[in-house]
């Protein structure tokens, strides 16, 4: 509670938090409040400039960019969340096991992790995306998450091995606490803030990975995301014809969302690692 109070006084965290909230509100409430057309509904011709009918103009299919932006942000955030959950879950599980087990199990788990880290994730992403047929937003999130966990695993392993030597863990052992309970009750809770921060980073990475894949044409079918918006605008040469409304809004939203998430993360880092706190 004390930490929460301090967090609420951190300018960085609060700035990030309010921007993220605004983006979320735009994506979730926008479609009902701010527009009355659907994401795939044609409202004009090819690359109509912004006007009273279409605030941010139309895209290559004549669809309203402003509306697409809401649905696109929604999908991107969703994919980011799925990727963040998957990566954090796998990373924390493997990291905690490796850090707590030590010995052969630790070496095996970290060996796998380290090998995966050396493979450029974009390669794995592209291969997986091509291999998986049903490309919904959820599968995409899962694919991104499955390739992103090794960094979390490494960080969590380091945390776990240092927590393992704490006195309360020794006390728990001589109180007869078993290994599983030890990890879940004596070690994990001490990493909550850390894991939450790792999750935010994975979420940010997930949003960016989606944009990258979609721009390459490997995005989700039957739906709009910030990445697919950019994909189509590039394919129809919006840059060359000067249709800035087709790609600038998506780029700005991508940047704002990731920037504010990272800002929140920096704010939390400051609180949870007191050595970074501003002294003046």
């Amino acid at each position, binding site marked *: 509670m004390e930490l929460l109070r301090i967090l609420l006084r951190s300018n960085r965290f609060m700035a990030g938090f309010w921007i993220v909230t605004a983006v979320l509100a735009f994506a979730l409430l926008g479609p009902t409040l701010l527009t009355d057309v659907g994401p795939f509904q044609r409202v004009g011709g090819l690359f109509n400039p912004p006007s009273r009918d279409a605030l941010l103009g139309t895209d290559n299919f004549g669809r309203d960019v402003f509306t697409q932006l809401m649905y696109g942000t929604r999908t991107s955030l969703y994919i980011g969340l799925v990727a963040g959950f998957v990566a954090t879950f796998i990373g924390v599980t493997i990291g905690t096991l490796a850090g707590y087990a030590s010995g052969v199990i630790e070496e095996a788990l970290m060996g796998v992790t380290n090998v995966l880290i050396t493979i450029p994730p974009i390669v794995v992403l592209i291969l997986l995306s091509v291999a998986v047929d049903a490309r919904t937003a959820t599968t995409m999130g899962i694919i991104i998450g499955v390739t992103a966990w090794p960094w979390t695993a490494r960080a969590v392993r380091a945390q776990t091995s240092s927590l393992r030597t704490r006195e309360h863990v020794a006390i728990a052992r001589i109180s007869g606490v078993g290994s599983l309970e030890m990890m879940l009750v004596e070690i994990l809770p001490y990493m909550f803030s850390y894991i939450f921060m790792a999750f935010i980073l994975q979420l940010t990475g997930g949003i960016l990975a989606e944009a990258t894949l979609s721009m390459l044409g490997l995005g989700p079918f039957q739906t709009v995301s910030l990445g697919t918006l950019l994909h189509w605008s590039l394919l129809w040469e919006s840059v060359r014809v000067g249709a800035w409304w087709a790609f600038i809004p998506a780029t700005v939203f991508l940047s704002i969302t990731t920037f504010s998430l990272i800002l929140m993360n920096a704010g939390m880092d400051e609180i949870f690692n007191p050595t970074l*706190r501003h*002294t*003046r």
Partner: protein
Amino acid sequence: MPNVVEVEGLEAYYRTPAGDDIKAVDGVSLAVREGEVLGIAGESGCGKTTLAQVLGLTVQKPLYVRSGKVLLEGRNALALDRETMRREVRGKTISTVPQGAMNSLNPTLRVRNLVIDVMRDHNPRIRRREAVERARERLDLLGLPPRVLEAYPHQLSGGMKQRVITVVSTLLDPVLLIVDEPTSALDVTSQKVAIKLLVDLLAKRIIRSIVFITHELPLLRHVADRIAIMYAGRLVEVGAMEDIVFRPQHPYAEGLVGSVLVPEPGMKERTVTGIPGRPPDMRRPPAGCRFAPRCPKRFDLCDRDPRPFGIDGREVWCWLHRDQPNAERP
């Protein structure tokens, strides 16, 4: 004996991130006399380290001085601008070896670079060789091997690190050296050597006075001339070492002396009781005598702030001694 520095009505508080004030030092007036070792003792959280920071002019946020003065040759050092303080006062007139200093040395710098940094801070024109030469002479004078100048911190033992920091901190011959728990991380043998160095610095008149902050009364018994006991941000008793250690008058000082456990015959037969209870929350310290809630001798006067009463040259902030004259404050 003239005073080298005087603290007047000092209130130094910490501002917590949640916006409360922790009244770490709350109305302290104290003088350090020339040529003496003044020990400051008390439980953790009593304000002794905060007092050292203000006295050493190393106040940093979240700590701030709400009111009071630190008088150096008649002028208030707290009112000096940053630059004057850094160039003329800190290190030259007053130098501090903070708590845990030996563990905060930059591991990538040799000791000689530390020496150069410290000397340059006060005299930007001094040549590197000159600075190192001065350090070499000083180490030699104090019987430390000059080769430590070429060492990295991790190559030195804890005791040696502590001594090297002490020497570097006194290179500019400060009038007053403040040491905060200089030996609490050391083994007893290294502790003894580190303390011998402090006594040497005083004997060779490189420094004129020492303020020695510690929670260990047995140490002060052997190095201090006078002792000030602090409790909950205030002084409770100040007097000559023998008076405080062997004849404490304030119930808190008595309790503190009574809690000492040392390996000497007779110790085993005694039942040491300590002091029941715990120090107050310094965001909201109790009114009146702050020790009263834990005091075995409290009575109805204790809900009023005690005045300092004088008993043969010592000051005791306790109503039990109200028949004594008011102490003459420095």
